């Protein structure tokens, strides 16, 4: 069940109650813009029977209630939404600064990662902190942002054996993606530092610090600054 729509967009059944909308077969800024625009349209004008939405790099997974909404009805509605997608003006993205204490105990993989690329740890930090990242989507656990825009010189595969527990706030690299662990969870990303900022707080009105489409910059801080910021949090 693969239905082409237009401009390379296509529908694909994922299960008896979910449909994938693919915008492209490779990660491009244009495809991601269209993911965000369709998400924005569906959030501002919700469709009865759609239960959940999962945006990703080039796709949007639409979960629906098959008892009240037929797949062909859903596809027809989505086509109407897709017709309007070029008119959507997404709000100006926010730029958020995330302070990071790099290396040492907080970034146990920084030295390995640097030597794999033949650069020093401080060069790696400088590269990591120089880029502006885009939040492609949140996934894995609440508030875990998949960030695009990592300098190519830092792209490193995941650890072959994931850690059983990665501390909350750990800043990591996996392939050409960057991210921050909001909770202590198992994880295979290479850790280069840690932020004292809470990435996800259920008691905050914006629970997740980051949302799809945000821009992010990492700012190096010292251990003392880390301790001071961590204190402010509690």
């Amino acid at each position: 069940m693969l239905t082409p729509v237009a401009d390379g967009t296509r529908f694909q059944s994922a299960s008896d109650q979910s449909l994938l909308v693919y915008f492209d077969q490779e990660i491009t800024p244009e495809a991601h813009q269209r993911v965000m625009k369709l998400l924005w349209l569906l959030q501002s004008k919700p469709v009865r029977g759609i239960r959940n939405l999962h945006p990703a790099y080039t796709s949007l997974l639409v979960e629906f209630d098959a008892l009240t909404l037929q797949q062909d009805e859903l596809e027809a509605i989505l086509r109407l939404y897709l017709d309007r997608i070029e008119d959507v003006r997404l709000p100006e993205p926010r730029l958020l600064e995330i302070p990071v204490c790099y290396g040492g105990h907080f970034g146990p993989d920084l030295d390995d990662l640097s030597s794999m690329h033949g650069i020093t740890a401080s060069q790696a930090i400088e590269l990591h902190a120089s880029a502006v990242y885009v939040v492609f989507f949140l996934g894995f656990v609440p508030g875990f942002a998949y960030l695009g825009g990592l300098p190519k010189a830092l792209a490193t595969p995941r650890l072959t054996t994931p850690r059983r527990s990665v501390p909350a706030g750990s800043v990591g690299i996996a392939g050409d993606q960057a991210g921050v662990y909001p909770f202590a969870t198992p994880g295979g990303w290479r850790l280069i530092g840690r932020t004292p900022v809470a990435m996800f707080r259920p008691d905050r009105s914006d629970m997740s610090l980051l949302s799809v489409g945000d821009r992010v910059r990492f700012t190096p801080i010292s251990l003392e600054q880390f301790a001071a910021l961590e204190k402010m949090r509690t």
Partner: protein
Amino acid sequence: MIKVLVPGLFTTVQDLGREGFGPLGVSPSGAADPISLRLGNRLVGNTEDAPALEMTLLGGTFCFPEGAVAALTGSEFDADLDDHPVDLWTSIEAQPGQTLRLGVTRSGARCYLCVQGGIDVKHFLGSASTHVLSGLGGLNGRPLRQGDVLKIVPTRASFRNRTIVPRVIESLSHRTVLRVTTGPQNNWFPDSSQRLFYTSAYRVAEESDRMGLRLEGRAIPSRSGREMITEGVSLGAVQIPPGGQPIILFVDQQTTGGYPKIANVISADIHRVGQLRPRDELRFERVELETARSLLREQEELLASKRFMQE
């Protein structure tokens, strides 16, 4: 009030989960066997989505200092109330000070303890369900411990003797064949892999949990040399990681994933996944999307009929 004297192996507060927070990366959670939870709640006069306790493989011991109307559903955990055996699928009344004791499972993986009024915990994003990985929801985001005290929402309802009719329980019962529809990366798997997948028996691995059931059996090769772009994953997706051993993504699943998916468990069989134990054997049977949807409709019609419960 419920006093937790013995927590059991892995007991959490669950309702029907939180839906609609995919953009935040929040997984649905909720009962692993949602039908047992729904029926349990109806036995005690609750709405179907009231929070209850989900026990896994080994049950706990719970005291009701003020008494309670309760029901056990799902799998048989050898329960007794002050040494009097308690049947599954029927409402019971615990007198003040009585203790409900559950043992090891005799059938599937999960047993639900529903109480009239429902378990009273703080909701997170509209649901009482526990998501242990992020430590959110339920009782402090974690499984129950000895000494925990759970509040019950007060009600004015009284005890009524209700039982689920055997015909309904049978139709919902354990199956060793899970029905699936084809997954979105179905064409990444050559015909030989498809045949292997649909003809082999798989065993549920020990390290399975509410996030996913890891299966052991014949490895499924995929066409090599392709890297998948991470995308949203649906409940019951059967993904094939590089090693070829399938993983069924389950209620506490991550919301996105980067492994190709060969199949997806149909909605009408999801509750059966919740009753699979480590070392259980299973097979996959392929059905069409329309079949899957009519099976779901039939199941919901059965649950909506008045005849499934005797009073």
